[in-house]
């Protein structure tokens, strides 16, 4: 079983320090990078599937600035086998459409049964890149996965896709692209042994030229979208604090909701 897991280093959302740089692009040096939250869930799902199968290889694929291997090591420490790091100065400022093209080109060079991606990222929150990658590769796309059940002998996979009323059970022939959610289950913490082992694992670096892509038509130079301006959201008013009996609190809430015409 060969699984490629897409890993996006994102500014740590817990830092609350994410910001745009002077060029209105995300300032990736402003705060330390971490593995995108939803990517950890799909990596955990991949690790469990390989463990259950008793065989397999998990390759991490990341398009990110030059310092990304620091973040990739953490994902390798969870148990992935190797990493591929696509990096090129021309990729700074890539739009989502361009990112999908680059990752699809990198996937063309790899062999896999399944590609796993977090359903969205905490910095962009667009949730469109996995679907675009699948379309570029001409592969089935199974999204919002809460459970992933491959049948390697039958060369198919079934996925529970979260729906507004429950879930849809999807099936497609391998290879596929799967977008996964937190419902797949809690990611493990890397063990000390895993952290030690990760130091020796291979991370291959690939540039745009290595992938046969021309920086004139892709990356920052060819972004399809651009930030035109920014503003701070309207500040919230001061917090009104109510102390007293439970009924005092309830009475004030009712009054507040009536003032705001919510009830």
């Amino acid at each position, binding site marked *: 079983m060969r699984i490629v897991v897409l890993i996006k280093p994102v500014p740590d959302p817990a830092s609350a320090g994410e910001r745009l740089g002077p060029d209105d692009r995300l300032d990736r040096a402003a705060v330390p990078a971490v593995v995108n939250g939803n990517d950890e869930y799909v990596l955990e799902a991949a690790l469990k599937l390989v463990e259950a199968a008793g065989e397999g290889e998990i390759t991490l694929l990341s398009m990110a600035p030059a310092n990304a291997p620091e973040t990739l090591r953490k994902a390798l420490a969870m148990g992935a086998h190797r990493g591929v790091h696509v990096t090129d100065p021309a990729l700074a400022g890539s739009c989502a459409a361009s990112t999908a093209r680059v990752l699809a080109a990198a996937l063309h060079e790899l062999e896999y049964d399944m590609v796993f991606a977090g359903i969205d990222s905490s910095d962009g*929150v667009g949730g469109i890149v996995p679907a675009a990658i699948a379309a570029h590769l001409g592969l089935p796309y199974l999204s919002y996965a809460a459970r992933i059940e491959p049948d390697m002998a039958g060369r198919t996979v079934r996925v529970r896709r979260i729906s507004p009323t429950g879930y849809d059970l999807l099936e497609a022939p391998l290879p596929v692209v799967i977008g996964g959610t937190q419902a797949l289950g809690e990611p493990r913490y890397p063990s000390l042994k895993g952290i030690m082992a990760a130091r020796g694992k291979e991370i291959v670096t690939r540039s745009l030229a290595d992938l046969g892509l021309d920086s004139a038509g892709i990356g920052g130079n060819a972004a399809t979208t651009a930030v035109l301006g920014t503003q701070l959201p309207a500040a919230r008013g001061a917090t009104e604090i109510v102390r007293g009996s439970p009924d005092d609190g309830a009475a004030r809430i009712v009054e507040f909701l009536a003032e705001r015409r919510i009830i």
Partner: protein
Amino acid sequence: MGALWVVAEPGPDGGLARISTEAATLVRELGVASGREVVGIVVAADPAPAAADLASYLPLVLTIADPAATSQTWSAVAAGHVAALLASEAPDAVFVGAGADGRDLAGAVSALTGLGVLVNATAVTWTESGPAVEMSVFGGRLLTTSGFTGGRGIVTVRPNVTTASPAGTVGRVEARTADTTTPLPAVRVVDRVSEAGAAAPIEEARVIVAGGRGVGGAEGFGIVQQLADTLGGAVGATRAAVDSGWIAYSQQIGQTGKIVKPELYLALGISGAIQHKVGMRTSGAIVAVNRDADAPIAEFADLFVVGDLFEVGAALLERLRARSG
């Protein structure tokens, strides 16, 4: 001059998803502001019910009937048809909801056409170089306005950015012939499973009553649910409550859950950690009940009641019921 398209997503019972009625209202107003025609697109096994709904919002609705839209994942089937339409006609922008189906469609159509995507629009205005799309980023700490460098593209629209309102007149519905070859591989829908207790999507709720670690257990969500029912809202939760198995992941709000913007967010036993805050801080009114007066949510709630959530919740329920009774 190109038109503005709204791609309708499937809703319950073959009708229209609520997000699509909101997107249609938003884009109709943008059509007036930009002097552009607005066209709805419905791809479904039987497009008639959704098309009739959409025609009450828009002057023209194009339909494509394709049985695969039900037996296979809708987004892959619809993306093929929308991309084929885009090859023959050149709208200035294509709008779709920012929910699961809309995101899947937007990503696939982007790859098939090369068009860029602006995501999670909270407002859209028109400039001489195309749409200017406002979105809330960094967990609600910044608003950006973005455009397409080529003037055209795809926009995903967040729920609750406008109130759906039908147009005064009913539009016309035109059937288009489906292209027989869709470019994307099929993903078969083997079964659609309803789970007990499944609630309306929380992103669409006008009122959310949410519980956190302080709720203490699955039984504790009883008061949360009762208050939500009384206020006509939905139940939300923090990751801690979901990870503890007290409530389904579909109700989780925050960094790896949903981002919501209801008119009222009533937070019970929620400390307001950053991972949760990023999912709800742009809510209209935030009311919190927490025993810990130093909880971070005290810094961004509009009203903060220091007290036991069960005691305050019970008193609140009684007062709300007395009021409506």
